[in-house]
């Protein structure tokens, strides 16, 4: 009887605790999934080497993909601040210029964000392909486009 009550109590406390933490955290706005380039630059030396996420857009004409070494360079921007990102390995197929991305890694003293994981943040917009467009080909051409650099 007491054992059961204890379990129920523990379960309730855990659930209420998790919910309260979540709500409180949200109200205090300390749930930040990623930093913007402007925020990261403002923090500067404070966060050198710390694991964090950086989110923004891939700056057009900034992508440099070396298929041989598997090194990917691009500039991430929030429209205000631009930061160079260096990553290894192929990005997701939807990665393209102007696309939203979230990168995981750390900010270095040399001002470059060293990433080990590039994630694509796509929009909530969906539309059928226009005349002559074929989704699959677009998909492939994006991939080829990046690989060809």
């Amino acid at each position, binding site marked *: 009887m007491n054992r*059961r009550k204890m*379990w*129920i109590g523990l*379960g*309730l406390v*855990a*659930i*209420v605790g*998790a*919910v309260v933490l*979540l*709500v409180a955290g*949200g109200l205090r706005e300390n*749930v*930040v*999934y*990623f930093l913007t380039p402007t925020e990261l630059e403002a923090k500067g030396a404070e966060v050198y080497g710390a694991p964090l996420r950086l*989110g923004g857009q891939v700056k057009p004409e900034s992508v440099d993909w070396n298929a041989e070494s598997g090194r990917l360079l691009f500039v991430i921007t929030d429209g205000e601040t631009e930061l160079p990102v260096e990553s290894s390995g192929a*990005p*997701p*197929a*939807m*990665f393209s210029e102007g696309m939203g991305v*979230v990168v995981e890694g750390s900010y270095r003293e040399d001002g470059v964000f060293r990433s080990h*994981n*590039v*994630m*694509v*943040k*796509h*929009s*909530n*917009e*969906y*539309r*059928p*392909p*226009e005349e002559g*467009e074929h*989704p*699959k080909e*677009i*998909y492939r051409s994006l991939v080829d486009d990046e690989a060809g650099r």
Partner: protein
Amino acid sequence: MTTTELPRFKRGRAPLLGLVTLIILVAGAMAGLLAVPADALQGEVQRLMYVHVPAAWLAMLAFFVVFVMSVLYLIQRDPRWDLIAVSSAEIGIVFTALTLVLGSLWGKPTWGVWWTWDPRLTTTAIMLMIYVGYLVVRSFAEDPEKRARWSAIIGIVGFVDVPIVYLSVLWWRTLHQPPSSPRSMAGEFVYVLLLNVAAFTFLYAYLMVRRYRLAVAERQLEELRLSREDRGGR
């Protein structure tokens, strides 16, 4: 409380509801797979929207019913509300898990990852945990009345997370995109999505009828066992 207070089984229309559900589900799947082209940017994988979004809708609808039934139980102490609540919670768990799996399958080729701890995914995982906890707590409680009371409290308090899951993409920065609207989506995609949401709503109704029937049968078995134990003189 005696067995007679519980509804007796009667010849229902469940098979007919099941048949209608099956027809709408098949129509929805065919519409999603054949009637509309795939998204211009994402390609074929975008068709997962027509199952991922309805599954998430069904799960949240199910948890809302748990919430309403929990409130009703605490006010009226009618065991039927408790049985509807537990039925709905189990269905909600199945479809929350399905939502997560489908989202993961969608995320890998588009985002590049199966999983990330962004606010939408994290609050959804918490939602799953809350309702699994709801069933676990029930399994620990031997007295039907206490079980119903305790789980009703969890059904009310735990529901706090459900609107948070929905609002997470608006409140916080996430990798998950915000909800699509008819303005952000081509018209034909909207109709197919609505058809599938309707199909999953029918599916919820059908599964609820079947799960509730099971809950009543299980409850009757329990009453039987408890009355036998009483007679045996514990």
